[in-house]
């Protein structure tokens, strides 16, 4: 399967390990990723907070670049980019007036861009490969590791745009972890907000919301939280010390990308999966399951 790949700004910086692990895992699964040449930032929350047309305009340029690659599908591992790219894609398909305005704005034709389908990488893996296909690749099962599958907000919401899984009780990530031999825990916060874009501008919000997510995972007996979004991972990992200070509880919960765990189960080393780059070290957990 050939598919255009949109890493997004975070995966080229803070979430470098998410990028590397995604590429290696997809390669193993027969999903050929082709990075969109010269892609630009989706504008994230800042752009659609300022002007909806700016947001759709920035994403439309990326969709048009995919068309130039002669590909019809694009995937991104970032939930934020996914939300922006798919919103643009759905709106261009549904609204001809908007398309005309964006064409004027971006100075490009969007006829081909309208045909491009966008999916989060979790969706691509679950739909193109599925649980059985994943199981076939597992060499080192995760040995019942107790994991909190954290879908967060934007992979499944809004329902009409995301068109994937359930916005309140998502299960795709749990199924994937099961296929790797882990034991996903039942917990309350799998689709709750981590504070998202307020990481720097209002850190107290992230400490509060992130703290609730960590506490819920602890109460459910999770040994780590599994993320599918660089913002969720960064918030829960970098703010974990502040959250621990605030709540007076030592969580010590590694926040791991789902692709890193897939890679481990496919017998890549922890270092190849960039697990040494996490601030909350997963080494003790990995050793306890004979994975490090």
């Amino acid at each position: 399967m050939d598919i255009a790949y949109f890493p997004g700004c975070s995966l080229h910086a803070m979430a470098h390990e998410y990028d590397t692990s995604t590429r290696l895992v997809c390669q193993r699964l027969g999903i050929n990723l082709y990075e969109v040449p010269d892609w630009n930032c989706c504008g994230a929350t800042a752009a659609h907070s300022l002007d909806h047309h700016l947001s759709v305009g920035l994403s439309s340029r990326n969709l048009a670049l995919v068309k130039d690659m002669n590909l019809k599908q694009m995937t991104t591992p970032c939930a934020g980019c996914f939300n922006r790219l798919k919103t643009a894609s759905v709106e261009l398909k549904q609204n001809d007036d908007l398309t005309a305005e964006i064409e004027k704005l971006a100075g490009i034709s969007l006829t081909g861009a309208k045909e491009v389908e966008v999916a989060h990488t979790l969706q691509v893996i679950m739909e193109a490969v599925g649980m059985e296909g994943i199981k076939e690749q597992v060499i080192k099962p995760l040995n019942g590791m107790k994991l909190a599958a954290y879908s967060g907000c934007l992979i499944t919401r809004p329902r009409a745009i995301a068109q994937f899984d359930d916005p309140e009780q998502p299960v795709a990530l749990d199924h994937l972890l099961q296929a790797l031999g882990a034991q996903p825990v039942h917990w309350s916060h799998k689709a709750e907000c981590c504070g998202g874009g307020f990481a720097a501008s209002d850190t107290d919000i992230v400490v509060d919301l992130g703290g609730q997510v960590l506490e819920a995972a602890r109460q459910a007996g999770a040994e780590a939280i599994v993320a599918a979004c660089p913002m969720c991972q960064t918030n829960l990992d970098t703010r974990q010390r502040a959250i621990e200070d605030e709540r007076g509880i030592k969580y010590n919960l590694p926040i791991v990308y789902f692709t890193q765990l897939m890679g481990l189960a496919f017998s890549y080393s922890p270092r190849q999966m960039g697990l040494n780059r996490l601030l909350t070290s997963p080494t003790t957990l990995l050793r306890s399951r004979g994975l490090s």
Partner: protein
Amino acid sequence: MGSKTVKKSNLVNISTLFTESRSFVAMVRQESGVDEKDCYQCGKCSAGCPLAFDMDYMPREIMRMLQLGMVDDILHSHTIWLCSHCITCYSRCPRSVDLPRIMDTLRLEAIKRGHAPEKQIKLFGDLFLWSVRQFGRVFEMGLIMGFNLKSGQFFKDIMLGPAMLLNRKISLLPHKIADGGAVKEIFDRTKEMEREGGHS
């Protein structure tokens, strides 16, 4: 009676409001594509909003204030800045009111009129977009340093610095895209269109 903590919003004369603010409400409806009258005030949005604890008006109240045309109170509120766009409210709304979209529209209108009670959130958004316009992508390190300098918190998160550098979590130079002109053009034309009287 006699409570000094009563909110200003509890004391408005609603009989004159609607006529005065009809055009504003119509504009919000047009720009957001959401009909404020769809909301029947069940409060499910507020019950599930993860940011409600920090807001001055509940999301449900913003909808009611919009229905009543309380433009000034809405545009001065912190609530419209604190929506994190998690879309929980919209997923649960029995009337499918796209509240995050309304919040975007209201925030933009507040900016146009020079209201930004959440100064740091506004500053961060501005710097983020400056970075995207300049490089075509976000330069995280520059963004964080710029934010700390401009918000006067010179040493914010400095304790994270060594670990982030050691784990190669931050790059010291921006990635610049080749066709940066195309991105700048999208920014500039959007602004132009807005000056020419907005888009549909």
